[in-house]
C-alpha cells in the first residue's frame, strides 16, 4: 500500500486585522510510506495550519504537497484527518459516526456496519457502539473520531493533537492503542502534538518547529526499538530523547511566550 507524503517548501500567510501574518515559512518534510512522524512546536507556531494545508482544507499557500510523488490540490481520498477539536457528530451513535464516511460513499448498509463494528473493536469501544458521544468520555469520543477517519481507509493519516484535551495517563494508554492500530493498518502517519512524551513514545521521527513564522527547526530520529509500549517512558534512552527535544523546544516556547506575554498583560 503506497502512501508516501512529501511537503515541499510550504509557506502560508494570513491576512489579519493587524496586517499579514506569516504562519508557515518554507516548511519541507517527508513521511515515507508506513512511517510515523510527529510534529511538535509551541502553541501558535502553525501546526494546525500545516495540517490544514496538507489535508487540503487551507487554500492559498505556496509550495507543494505530494502523495507518492504526485502533487495534490485540495482534499484527497488518500488522506484522512483527525481534528484537534471535538469532532464527533453528536446526533449520531458511535457506530453511526464511524459509518459516516462509508455512508457518504454509498457503501451498502450491512457492509458499512460490518466495517464499523470491526473499527469499534479496534479502538477498544466494544459495547459502546450504540452510545451517543455525549454519553462518552473525551478519550472515547476522540477514539470514535479516529475510528471514523480510519473507516475511510486513507493511506495517510493526519492527526492534529487528537489527545490534547486528555490527561497524561489516558494519553499514554491511548498512545499504546494508536501504535497497535498503526501496526495493524500500516498507515503513513503524521501526528501533530505538543506533548514531548507522546511524540517520542509513538514516532520514528520527531520534527520540531520554530515559533512564528513556523519553520522546521530540527528533525530528531527516534531510534527506540519497536514494538513499543508506554512502559518505554521508564527507559534512559527515552529520557535522553525527551531531553534533546525539550532543549530545542524550550527556546521556541520561550520565544513564543516573550512575543505573546506583553499583549497578554496589556489587555
Amino acid at each position, binding site marked *: 500500500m503506497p502512501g508516501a507524503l512529501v511537503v515541499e517548501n510550504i509557506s502560508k500567510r494570513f491576512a489579519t486585522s493587524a496586517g499579514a501574518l506569516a504562519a508557515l515559512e518554507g516548511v519541507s518534510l517527508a513521511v515515507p510510506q508506513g512511517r510515523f512522524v510527529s510534529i511538535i512546536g509551541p502553541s501558535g507556531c502553525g501546526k494546525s495550519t500545516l495540517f490544514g494545508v496538507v*489535508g487540503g482544507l487551507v487554500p492559498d499557500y505556496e509550495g507543494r504537497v505530494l502523495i507518492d510523488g504526485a502533487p495534490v490540490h485540495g*482534499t484527497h481520498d488518500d488522506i484522512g*484527518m483527525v481534528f*484537534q*477539536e471535538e*469532532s464527533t457528530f*453528536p446526533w449520531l451513535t458511535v457506530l453511526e459516526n464511524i459509518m459516516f464516511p462509508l455512508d*457518504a460513499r454509498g457503501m451498502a448498509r450491512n457492509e458499512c456496519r460490518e466495517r464499523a463494528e470491526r473499527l469499534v473493536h479496534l479502538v477498544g469501544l466494544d459495547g459502546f457502539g450504540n452510545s451517543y458521544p455525549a454519553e462518552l468520555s473525551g478519550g472515547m469520543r476522540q477514539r470514535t473520531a479516529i475510528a471514523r477517519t480510519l473507516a475511510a481507509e486513507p493511506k495517510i493519516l493526519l492527526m492534529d493533537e487528537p489527545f490534547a484535551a486528555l490527561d497524561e495517563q489516558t494519553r499514554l494508554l491511548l498512545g499504546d492503542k494508536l501504535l497497535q492500530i498503526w501496526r495493524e493498518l500500516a498507515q503513513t502517519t503524521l501526528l501533530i502534538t505538543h506533548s514531548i512524551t507522546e511524540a517520542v513514545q509513538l514516532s520514528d521521527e520527531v520534527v520540531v518547529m520554530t515559533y512564528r513564522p513556523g519553520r522546521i527547526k530540527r528533525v530528531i530520529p527516534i531510534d527506540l526499538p519497536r514494538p513499543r509500549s508506554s512502559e518505554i517512558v521508564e527507559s534512559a534512552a527515552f529520557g535522553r530523547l525527551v531531553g534533546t527535544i525539550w532543549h530545542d523546544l524550550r527556546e521556541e516556547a520561550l520565544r513564543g511566550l516573550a512575543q505573546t506575554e506583553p499583549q497578554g498583560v496589556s489587555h
Partner: protein
Amino acid sequence: MATTLTNFNRAPLHWFAPVTRVRALTLLAAALVWEGVARSGWLYEGVVPPLTAVARAFVVLLVTGDTYHHLAVTAWEVAAGFGIGLVAGIAFGILMGARPFFGRAMAPYVDGLATAPKIIFLPIVMLLFGVGITSKIALGALSAFFPVTLNTAAGMHGISPVLIRVGRSFRLSRAQMVRMIYLPALRGSIIVSMRLGLGVAIIGVLLAEIKLADRGLGFLAIDHYNQFRIPDMYALLLFIFILAIGANVLIGRLSPRR
C-alpha cells in the same frame, strides 16, 4: 430555552394537583365573570352573549358539515403556506449561514422584513394571485418564511466549524453536506422554526381570509360578525383557538433535544 415551560406543561399532573386546580379555577372565574357581565346588561347584549348561547352555537358548529368544509380550506391553506415557507426558509437560512458573505448581504432585509406585519403584503399578493386560495397560501408562506429563515441562519452560526471541516475532509458533495451535516445539526433550530412558523402561518392565512375571501374559517368568522351572529362568532373563535393549541401540541411533540 423555553424547555422549562414545555417540561412544565408536559409534566404528568393529576387533576387534583395544585397547579391543575388553579388552572381550573381561573377558567371557572373567567366564565363566571363573563356570565355575570352577560346577564348584567351593562354592555349591549349582543357583544357578550350568555355562555349558554355560545355553548349552543358551539355544538351547532360541531355538527354542521359546512364548518368542516371551511376548516378543510383553511387547513389546506395553512399546510401549504407553512410547508412552502418552511422549506424556502430553511433553504435560505442554510444558504445565509453557509455563505457568510451572502448572509451578511441579506441580513438587513431579512431582519427588516421579519418584523414587518406580513398583512401589508396582502394587496400585492392579491394582485399576483387573485382573491382565491392561492393568495392565502402565499401570505401564509410569506409569514412563515421569515422566522424560519432567521432561526435557521442563527442555527447555522451555532454549528461547530470543525464539523463542517470533517465533512469537507470526507469530500462530501454540497447535497451531502446539507443532508448529512447541516440538517441534522439544525434539528433543534428547525423544530423551533416550525413552532414559530406554524403560528404566524395560521395568523397570516386567517387575516387574509378575514380581509377578503369566500371560504375558510377566517371568512366564516367575519361573516358571522357581519351578519351579527355573535354567539356563532365566539363559538368559532373558540374552535379556532382549540385547533391552534392542538397544532402546537403536535409540533411540540417533536423534541428539540439531542
